[in-house]
């Protein structure tokens, strides 16, 4: 069905949501992605991806607790759903399958020998 395709960036965000399960909200996801991949993202980029993922049904959200820095505002926590999990899985399988399709590669290290 149109609209449930999982984009590359969305996959990354979805994956991270699963990784920090239970405490996944925009700020923590940005931090986690930076920690694991070194990519510096803005809050809005990740938030937009989350909104989109929620629309596709890959995550669902609920309002969680607050901290002092947030000035009493609650955070919206995102949790991966079963369809989200299977979409991730499918993406991984496609990848693995294609990895296995790569023939033995021999690299020419010209100039080294």
């Amino acid at each position, binding site marked *: 069905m149109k609209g449930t395709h999982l984009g590359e960036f969305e996959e990354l965000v979805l994956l991270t949501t699963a990784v920090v399960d239970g405490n996944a*909200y925009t*700020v923590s996801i940005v931090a986690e992605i930076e920690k694991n991949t070194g990519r510096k993202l803005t809050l809005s980029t990740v938030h937009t991806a989350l909104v989109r993922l929620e629309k596709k049904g890959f995550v669902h959200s609920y309002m969680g607790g607050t901290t002092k820095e947030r000035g009493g505002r609650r955070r919206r926590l995102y949790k991966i759903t079963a369809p989200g999990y299977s979409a991730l899985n499918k993406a991984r399988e496609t990848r693995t399958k294609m990895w296995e399709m790569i023939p033995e590669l021999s690299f020419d290290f010209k100039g080294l020998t």
Partner: protein
Amino acid sequence: MKEKYPPRWADKILEWYCLEYYLEEVQGDLHEWYFEKLKHSSRFLNLRYFLLVLRYFSLVRSKSFQKLISNPNYLSMKKILLITYRNLKKDKISGFMRLTNLAFGISVFLLALVYANYELNYDRFHEKGNNIYRIGQDGGGTRAWAAGPIGLGPFALENVPDVKSMARFIPVRETWMKAGEKKLYENGVFYVDSSALTLFSYEMVQGDKRTALSDPWSIVLTESMAKKYFGDEDPMGKTMQLLVDRGESRKVTGVIKDVPPQSHLQFDFLCSIYSYGDENYQRSWRNYFVYTYIEADEEDLSNISEQLKTEFLTRYNGSEDDYFVSVLTPIHKVHLFTNQEKDNADHGNAYYVYILFSIGAFVLIISCINFINLTVIKGLDRAKEVGLRKTVGAFRPQLIAQFMSENMVLLVFAGMCSLLILLMVEPFFKELSGLDLPLNFISNPQILLTLTAIVLGLELISGIYPAVVLSNFKPAEIIKPLGSTSMKLKKIGVIRKILIIAQFSLSVILVIGSIVVYSQLSYLKEQDLGFEKDQILLVKLNWSLSQKLEALKEELAKIPGINNVSLSEDVPGYRISMETVQTLGNPEGVMSRITASDENFLDTYNMELSAGENFLTSSPDQRQFIINETMAALSFGDRDPIGQKLIWRDTGQVVGVVKDFNFQSLHSEVEPLTIIRNLDINWGYVSIQFEPQSVDRVLSRINESSQEIYPDLPRMETTFLDDRFGQLYLAENRLQSIVWAFCLITIVLTISGIFGVASYNAHKRAKEIAIRKVLGAGSSEMIWQLLKGFVVLLGSALLIGLPGAYYLATWWLQDFAYQVSINPIIFVGAAMVMLILIFASSGLVTFKATNTNPATILKNE
């Protein structure tokens, strides 16, 4: 250190645009980010925070956008677009025809509108335009004079308090201009008051509006003339010489933008009027060739005429009964609505504007009728849809809204198509109309406004009827047909038939009208004018050329291929002045065109004498007149005019009567004409009758001789007289081609209308045809069955259309002095053409229907 907080103003922005649903979360996230960053560095933090807020803006989080797309109207709009799209896709031909019909109709109407708008808005660019009037004079003749004496302007300004300001324009005919080495003939030269630049709104590029023309020897020129004479140099302060100034030179004191085309005054040079005669002359009641413009309030107009008259009569000791009538014309009206003597303004023809506009409106109506018919016909197929919708719970207003919205979609689309069509016809339009009028909606945004108005208007006119009709079906009747429904369908059929009849009659009127207009115009052009105009070359004389006139005449006579050379004050095709000529018994006199010529004039123009003889050369000092038949009848009645005395400035004798000929054009009737033999006058023209086969040699020889005789003058310009007559009929020629084009479009629209209705009929009766065929009916018989209805419709349309066309044609023709007789064949022909068109287009459709194998149709049952 004071504790830092995220800037409140940035938060406000977020709160302003962000959807409530996300606001708490997003703001919390942002604050968390802020305090996190604060731990490391606080440089530009507020700015970075603000940028982040901005980056959060997207449509999914925007309050107003989300509100918009959840609006029920938006949702139903989306549905309507979808349904319209599907319906169009289902029947491409009908959709295409409805679209093209509308697009054509709208474009033709837009074109007519743009043209009419242009013609009707002459001289609107002057800021004081609403208060500027031209003072002409009613000299007691048939037409008022556009021009007055030179002293009129100052007289009015000084003696009539309601006249706020005044500017005079004196045209300079036939002069050359000299600047440095360049010496060229120029036409657009005027002497004007210095107030002309402040009274009228001509845009100054260089120089001062108020003082540019104060000096008697100053001149102001247009940008393109500055370029022509001075190239890229700065023209200010340069000197120019005019032939008419007899050796004095003028200083350029200003440059104005080229005069806009929508101006009845067209000029290239403005010279200061203060060099035109001394103070005394400037105030004298002489030189009746001055256009005087005054600024005044509208309510004072009648007052001004009165005051002018009283002041004039007291000052010059006239009596109350003296004839003195001023004619004040608002300058907007000069272009289209005046037909005054002595006027050489840029003129249009109000009639042609009306004709084109009504044709445009007719074509639009025809295309609308097509649209309505096709929509209703298509809609009948959707009766089941309507029934179903109603059953499910739709109310009638909703259905009407739906149908109207569908029409709106089509209309908007057709409007866009017509914009494209306008873009495509722009070059043709330019050529035909001779107007440099942009038709693309970007440089002429007025078109878009007009188009919007048209589309909305059409939505009301052609959208409501189908919507009301179609939404009127009762569900039960449609799904299970009863007697009353077929009654209703019949009723719709009646209204549709009326529409078709209206459309046919309009087409008949348009076709006949076009033919009448066309034949009247060709009649005008081909009518024998009563003199030779095809083999005449003209040389317009000026002061420098007149200096060696005898030598020129001798040289010309020597050139082989030239049959006759004549000198005259005026020539046919140009304006000839009108003055009072008296007879001995009649001191009141007769108003007559009066001109002077030498004895070769009649021979050169191959004019025939009906009585008497040509000017006698034997007695050079005697005053001799030749008059035309009209003048003879007016002055002498039944008496023999030969030998009678005529008085014009002095008494002379009539020696000949020339047959009436049309010395102007066929727009006007033959007027009285008096030709006086005069040897000591400022000749206006040399007319040369040449052999057509040696025209090239004649032209080059004339050129050579003129170089010989006038070594320091610009090349002598020669014009063909028939070119001049071509110019006189330019408007007619253009109208002719436009009328043809519109006529063609009408025919195409009519055909497409018939086509639509016929294919519907054939479609509806497909089963009937198939069954009849199975039972053994022949093709031709069935085609007749289907065509019969059309013939009846056409018959009724002809009953309305033919008399209508006849009435309109005679109404239009009555204003022409020379009318083509309306040939009944035109009417028979137009009726035949319509009949053939209907048979051909509907026959084609029907033929296809009757030729289908009955099995393919019947197997569906």
